[in-house]
């Protein structure tokens, strides 16, 4: 597999890898670094790629695991860089148009979800993978995925209603 073949395989889902990494790692720079690192890892194991039936699913699993590792090492070394980056962005985005602001609220709510629900909502509602693929990517049973997804959706909705009501009253 040469470079152009590899890129042909990888390019269709590189944005998905990036978005999932960003969902988990929050900061854009972190996500970019992670994406670069992951694509490079894939490139290094390119000989093995043809063995996987679904390279994309494999890449998403890798992304998930890689981001978990990053988050763990962040916690261990007490680095709060990610969070501060996020807050800065938040204040600047507050000044943007109202539509963007309400949309941003959803972003904030997803941010507060547990990691697993974050991943599942990212994979389902944004990337629109079907359940089989998601089960493979997160290594969970279909029922567990559905429960997590349902919880995530309900939480977001309830929080939105709550905020909306506060806004009104």
């Amino acid at each position, binding site marked *: 597999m040469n470079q152009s073949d590899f890129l042909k395989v990888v390019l269709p889902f590189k944005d998905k890898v990036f978005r999932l990494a960003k969902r988990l790692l929050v900061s854009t720079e972190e996500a970019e670094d992670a994406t670069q690192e992951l*694509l490079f890892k894939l*490139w290094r194991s390119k000989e093995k790629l043809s063995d996987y039936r679904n390279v994309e699913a494999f890449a998403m699993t890798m992304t998930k695991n890689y981001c978990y590792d990053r988050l763990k090492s962040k916690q261990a070394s007490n680095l709060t860089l990610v969070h501060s980056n996020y807050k800065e962005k938040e204040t600047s985005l507050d000044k943007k148009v109202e*539509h963007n602001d309400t949309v941003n609220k*959803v972003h904030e709510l997803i941010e507060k979800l547990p990691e697993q629900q974050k991943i599942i909502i990212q994979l389902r*509602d944004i990337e*629109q993978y079907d359940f089989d693929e998601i089960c493979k990517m997160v290594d969970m049973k279909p029922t567990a995925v559905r429960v997590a997804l349902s919880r995530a959706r309900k939480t977001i909705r309830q929080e939105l209603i709550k905020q909306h009501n506060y806004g009104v009253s």
Partner: protein
Amino acid sequence: MELANIEKLVDKYLDAETTLQEEQILQQYFTSNNVAPHLQEYSMMFNYFKQSKDETYTKTIQLKPEKTKKNWKWLSVAASVALLFSVFIGNEQYKEYQQRKQFAQIKEALQMVSINLNKGNEALYAVSNNISKGSNAVQQLNTLPNTFSKANEILNVNK
């Protein structure tokens, strides 16, 4: 799509029972401009989902690190081969040099031997010359009796 139908789908959606197609329908409805007021929160959600999908990874994908690594590997291999080769060649050259040196020494020694031999030869020539002179003299001496006898004969005839 009728509102009742949408509401049904929304309930299914919250229980994570909708299919991708149904979710597509919901997305289309909620990102349009005429969303029922009591379902506004979904419009926020679906707008966010739609918008999120537009984000792309814009940086160029770098696959170079491996290449340089590979080059280093090959370079080290080439360097070690060159080193081995040069050591081998150097060793050969040194051996040749040693041989030349030995050859020169031997040549010198042989030359000295030959010079001395020539000296000895000359001396032998001188000796042999003297010997031949001596033998000539001896021969001349050998001819003396003859001359004597001839002289006697001549004397006898004269008598």
